């Protein structure tokens, strides 16, 4: 009985082993003779949160606010070339991503790097010489340098110190890189994995690619050399490589200076993994033969040099938010600004006079008032400061046969005026009821020969009189 079971067990094992061998052969056959190439393409478009779509559709937002919220691309470049030689050359790269796979605006985060000058970096080369020879392939003598665990660790932890690094959270940019003493910022190195949105799904993206360059295995005797095998050195791409490539792309764009979008191929730099909602894991695609990843790069390319920190996409230059190449800066502290309007008889709005004239036979002249449309417009510009100037002898009024005798009923009522000026010769100006009521007039200027006759309630503010 025992032997019978053993025989059956052995038979099963042998059967399974044969099956395993057949499957292995089938895989080999399929892989090398049957399989057709599969290509995967990832398009990395706008990185706005999934919740922002509803907000953008809201009617409460202006078009400008909508545009600001809509524009969030994975890669953004700000490049001040200083071709006009009026500042410093400034190169900046920002990466916009999410902190979690929910892809909501609450998970927004951006990290970026800044270089003052023209960055001339190269892929990271960690040559470990003959001490770290590793035979990567079976059956030939190809040798790869820079592949040891130690080299990989160096490459993965490499952060180029020639850059300033900034993070962006909650509307504020800051630098939290503290080199050897730990960091509270996102370090842009090969092990850094970002979460991005593709097709409204979460993916992770990591800059972990490299390339191998044949450095030749040459023997040399008495000056005569010959190649005896393949010898490679492994070059690791870093964020400096990405930075340099992006800057070159911007510098060589055919449209020249301005704000544009291009689509860049990130396949040789980044690996992408899709988030599996069921298993809650990012799954690697090691079946597809060719994976291409394209991303939108939004850039600003300027012929000027950067002069102060407001031109940086981080609002900071060289870790200084007050950066300015001018040595002596002006104290520009102020409370409020007001746009000053000096309206005279020639002023027009949409091609029409802003003042309306009504002829009075009793007074033998015209009473002036403000066009109601203009009044309405100024009420929508609360910081506007309006000065009104009437030159009673102006050519414009003469040509149009308008002799102004005063301000009409409600002419400027409920309309804020800072200063009103009457220029002319001996003349009486009549201010009819409510002409300047609630105008908050501060100054009344007039020529020496001008006098005023004011209705009792023509004006209700205290003002200063100035004779010209």
């Amino acid at each position: 009985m025992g032997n019978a079971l053993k025989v059956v067990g052995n038979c099963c094992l042998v059967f399974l082993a044969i099956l395993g061998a057949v499957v292995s052969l089938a895989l080999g056959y399929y892989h090398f003779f049957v399989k057709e190439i599969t290509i995967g393409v990832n398009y990395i478009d706008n990185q706005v949160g999934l919740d922002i779509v509803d907000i953008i559709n809201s009617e409460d937002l202006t078009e400008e606010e909508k545009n600001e919220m809509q524009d969030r691309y994975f890669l953004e470049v700000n490049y001040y070339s200083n071709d006009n030689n009026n500042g410093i050359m400034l190169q900046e790269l920002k990466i916009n991503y999410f902190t979690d796979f929910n892809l909501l605006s609450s998970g927004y985060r951006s990290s970026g790097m800044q270089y003052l000058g023209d960055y001339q970096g190269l892929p990271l080369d960690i040559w470990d010489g003959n001490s770290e020879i590793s035979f990567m392939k079976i059956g030939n003598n190809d040798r790869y340098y820079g592949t040891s665990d130690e080299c990989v660790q160096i490459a993965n932890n490499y952060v180029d110190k020639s850059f300033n690094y900034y993070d962006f959270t909650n509307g504020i940019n800051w630098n939290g890189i503290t080199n050897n003493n730990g960091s509270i910022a996102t370090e842009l190195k090969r092990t850094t994995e970002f979460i991005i949105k593709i097709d409204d799904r979460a993916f992770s993206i990591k800059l972990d690619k490299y390339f191998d360059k044949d450095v030749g295995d040459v023997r040399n005797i008495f000056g005569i050399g010959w190649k005896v095998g393949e010898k490679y050195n492994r070059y690791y791409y870093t964020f400096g490589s990405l930075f340099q490539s992006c800057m070159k792309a911007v510098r060589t764009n055919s449209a020249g200076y301005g704000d544009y979008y291009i689509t860049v191929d990130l396949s040789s730099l980044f690996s992408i993994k899709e988030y599996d909602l069921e298993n809650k894991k990012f799954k690697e695609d090691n079946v597809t033969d060719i994976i291409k990843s394209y991303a939108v790069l939004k850039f600003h390319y300027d012929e000027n040099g950067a002069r102060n920190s407001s031109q940086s996409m981080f609002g900071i230059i060289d870790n200084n938010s007050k950066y300015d190449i001018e040595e002596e800066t002006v104290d520009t502290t102020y409370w409020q600004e007001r746009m000053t309007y000096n309206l005279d008889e020639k002023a027009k709005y949409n091609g029409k006079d802003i003042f309306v004239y009504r002829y009075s036979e009793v007074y033998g002249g015209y009473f002036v008032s403000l066009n109601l449309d203009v009044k309405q417009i100024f009420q929508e510009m609360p910081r506007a400061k309006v000065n009104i100037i009437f030159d009673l002898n102006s050519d414009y009024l003469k040509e149009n046969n308008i002799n102004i005798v005063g301000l009409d009923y409600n002419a400027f009522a409920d309309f804020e005026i800072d200063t009103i000026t009457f220029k002319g010769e001996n003349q009486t100006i009549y201010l009819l009821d409510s002409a300047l009521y609630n105008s908050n007039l501060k100054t009344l200027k007039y020529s020496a020969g001008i006098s005023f006759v004011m209705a009792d309630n023509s004006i209700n503010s205290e003002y200063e009189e100035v004779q010209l």
Partner: protein
Amino acid sequence: MKWYWYIICVILVLLGVFCGIQLYREVKAESYVNGSIDISNKFSQESFKYTNTSVVFYHDIYDETDTYLFEADCLKVDDFNGLTNTYQVVLNDYILLGSEINAGSIFTNVNLDFYDTYGEIIKSVDMQISIKFLSDKTQLTLATSGNENASFLEQYFSNNGIRLYVNEIL
């Protein structure tokens, strides 16, 4: 069976399992496209619009007029014609009255008063805006005189951004 045959069999079985999974994945593998890219660069615009978060004025050291300039090349504007159409210039929600509108250009002046916390004017700044609608681009120039004026304007635009529009009145 010898003991090493067991080991070989187990290895073959494990190899078969691994290869089976890989074979399944390779057979099932299909080409795919994730997402799409929807961008288009604009090389012209229907009406003039310039927006930015800041403005920086530059002074040419060889210029003796103490003029500080901000210049920007913007997209070409389709069909601007100041002779036949009526336009309105708007800067940061302020409608600029008194603009000189020519066939292919606009010139306008603005005056900004800056107040301190006591309500007193500490700086009054004039700025000239020039917009030239050329055949291949639009040239925008903001000009003021003196470093102080330029600094106050830079501060203003840093606080408020710049939103400059030229709208056709229909």
